[in-house]
């Protein structure tokens, strides 16, 4: 066992004994995410390094503190990638942080989310024990799928110390097409494209411009380009645009003014009062500035079958919506069993946890 893992385990045991809450921290690039952060920082960043990578297995295993940039550079050197395109926000973001945050990038609608690529994970329990779930293989149904439960858990079940991820080959060719459309027409076009067997890997609408990214075998991309028409965006500009969206560096996403992240079914009608300023994921992810009345924004998102999160809000505001009572009861029981002393990221995912 590495020294740094032992340090983490010792810190957890001490916190469990004293009841002092811990704030789990990797690269410290996502402090804005979730509800308030309380507790003594438990640094995971030092527990870093690639444990196993064999490109022909399509699996990589890394310690949680491994910088995402380092991992992705290694994959790229072998023509592979993390298909869920986790946002880095800033340099220093870690693999463990990406899994705990559970955020996916522009490829979400076509390739899947973080949990679709997590094959296994190790955590330190509230009792200071190292626990491994899942594994390093593609198919594994032994026991409950705890490693995927950790995706988006924001650390409330315990610090993730190692993860195994499925990786995919980088597409041979990418092309981005552009259209002048208003938001409803763009979402309708994205939905139509998604119904066809086309290699659409990302969509966006912003300021009257809809963009569709195609990724895959050259033959498939070329024939899709013919089917979809539109104007081709110069490849450098296109790459910069998708990178900016992915890493939340687009001006709209980066500005620290009130911003709502509304996630609904892709085909949900756009509401006139909340014309989004940016749409991704074929219409399922809508970023909005409007909506002084937060309760109404949340209620409308719920009515559409989704949820609104106040991504950047005034100090002290809640980010996430309330959980339904039956789900919250299960959350509380899970929290109590993983973390009996309630030391891990108290309240960060939900005030009740």
């Amino acid at each position, binding site marked *: 066992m590495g020294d740094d893992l032992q340090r983490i385990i010792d810190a957890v045991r001490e916190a469990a004994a004293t009841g002092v809450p811990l704030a789990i921290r990797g690269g410290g690039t996502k402090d804005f995410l979730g509800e308030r952060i309380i507790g003594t920082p438990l640094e995971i960043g030092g527990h870093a390094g690639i444990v196993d990578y064999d490109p022909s297995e399509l699996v990589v295993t890394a310690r949680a503190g491994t910088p995402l940039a380092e991992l992705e550079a290694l994959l790229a050197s072998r023509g592979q990638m993390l298909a869920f395109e986790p946002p880095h926000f800033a340099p220093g973001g870690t693999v463990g942080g990406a899994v705990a945050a559970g955020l996916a990038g522009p490829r979400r609608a076509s390739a899947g989310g973080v949990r679709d690529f997590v094959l296994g994970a190790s955590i330190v329990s509230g009792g200071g024990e190292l626990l491994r779930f899942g594994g390093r293989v*593609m198919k594994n149904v*032994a026991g409950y799928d705890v490693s*995927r439960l950790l995706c988006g858990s924001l650390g409330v079940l315990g610090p993730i110390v190692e993860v195994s991820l499925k990786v995919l080959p980088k597409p041979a060719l990418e092309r981005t097409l552009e259209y002048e459309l208003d938001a409803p027409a763009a979402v309708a076009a994205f939905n139509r494209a998604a119904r066809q067997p086309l290699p659409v890997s990302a969509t966006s609408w912003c300021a009257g411009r809809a963009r569709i990214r195609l990724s895959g075998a050259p033959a498939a991309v070329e024939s899709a380009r013919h089917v979809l028409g539109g104007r081709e965006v110069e490849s450098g500009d296109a790459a910069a645009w998708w990178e900016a969206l992915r890493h939340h560096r687009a001006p709209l996403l980066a500005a620290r003014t009130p911003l709502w992240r509304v996630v609904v079914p892709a085909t949900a009608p756009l509401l006139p009062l909340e014309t989004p300023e940016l749409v991704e994921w074929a219409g399922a992810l809508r970023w909005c500035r409007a909506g002084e009345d937060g309760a109404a924004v949340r209620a409308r998102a719920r009515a559409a079958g989704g949820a609104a999160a106040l991504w950047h809000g005034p100090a002290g505001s809640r980010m996430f*919506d309330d959980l339904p009572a039956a789900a919250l009861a299960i959350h509380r029981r899970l929290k109590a069993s993983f973390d009996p002393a309630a030391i891990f990221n108290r309240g960060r995912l939900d005030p009740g946890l």
Partner: protein
Amino acid sequence: MIPAPRDDILAALRACLPGDALLTEQAELAPYECDGLSALARRPLAVALPKTEAEVVAVLACCRRFDVPVVARGAGTGLSGGALPHPEGVVLSLARLNRILAIDAAAGTARVEPGVRNLALSEAAAPHGLYYAPDPSSQIACTIGGNVAENSGGVHCLKYGLTLHNVVGVRGYTSDGDELVLGAGAPDGPGLDLLPIVIGSEGMLLVLVEVTVRLLPRPPLARVAMASFPDVGRACDAVAQIIAAGIVPAGLEMMDRGAAAAVEPFCGAGYDLDAAAILLVESDGTPAEVEDEIARVGAIVRAAGASAVRVSRDEAERIRLWSGRKNAFPAAGRISPDYYCMDGTIPRKHLARMLDAIAAMAGRYGLRCINVFHAGDGNLHPLILFDANAPGEWPRAEAFGAEILELCVELGGTITGEHGVGEEKLGSMCVQFSPAERGVFLAVKAAFDPAGILNPGKVIPTLHRCAEYGRMRVHRGATPFAHLERF
């Protein structure tokens, strides 16, 4: 708690179901005494066959009141005894909840009841140019609810994913009668993502009444290439080289000589019976894309040492080439009175080593074993052939299987890739997970099902069970895990 009298329980169940929806006579219970793993069988107290959600809720409430175990069941095609009845429990068959509630072609989703058959869903979606991707070999009979319970796979998982990747939401009831809605149209939401823990939970956390699945556009064309190899090692190398070349085929399957010989007379697929291993590689997409990919695959397999390559010329030939692979299990039943299907997964690079080890074990246990596997994702299905009527053969087959699974764990893999733990692999769970990890599984179960009535006794072995398993393995003198803690 003193168990309620049997008659009281049955009277209460009768009160919440129509007359034809409760089976209690021994002859009626017999078809429900096992699932697809017929070596494990026992009869339940009763079988409930509700037709509506309200009836499901009423049966659950009744079982909760009397503290009676509930074993949910779909088509009963599972291969690990997951739907094996509890002797004092009720089998809750969801087979009559078989309506497709909605197909939303614009969103590419379908909302279905759990008893809808896997293939029926793809057939219903076909007029929209859509299909449901996971295709376990039992797809003609197995239900979507059962697929969710087991996180079923199929031959196209490498590219299109497991049930987990194709189910976007479920609605169901906890044993307390609380309705739980997890996931559905929106890609994410607040709180923990409970959906992946319910998928593959083998009916132990939630009784499902509705499943929302993702439907995919049917690719315009699919073709399959069949490559023959003079030895298994070269076939395994070819698999690694296809993946390393950046190709993710729609299907990547392997069969050994024994499996090909078993299925050929049955299916007439045209398999090369002189080959030590046959590789099936499917490519799908636009015609140009398929042509290009098949050409690349052909070059790779030839360079890896394939002695012959045949590519399907039309859809009929493609289906024929797959028919042997998809019918491997029934074919095993034709060449042997009984067979025991295993389901371990290992890192792909160890495939050749694993097959050598299985051949050595077959000699040691005195039983034949044929092999089919999802080579693309390292998921093996050794089929151990035995005769249940020959004294000692079933215990030998069971021990053979357990040894294969122990080697899977040793090679960095898992004891089940897609068939589930059920009752069958309780012993092997002791090899893969520490007592603390098994404790987490128990806690997850208790978080959803505090009463502990949903499919109790499956998946998570007790400490006692693991101690027994440990003793049994030591007794045989075969303890590849001498370093592991034993109880």
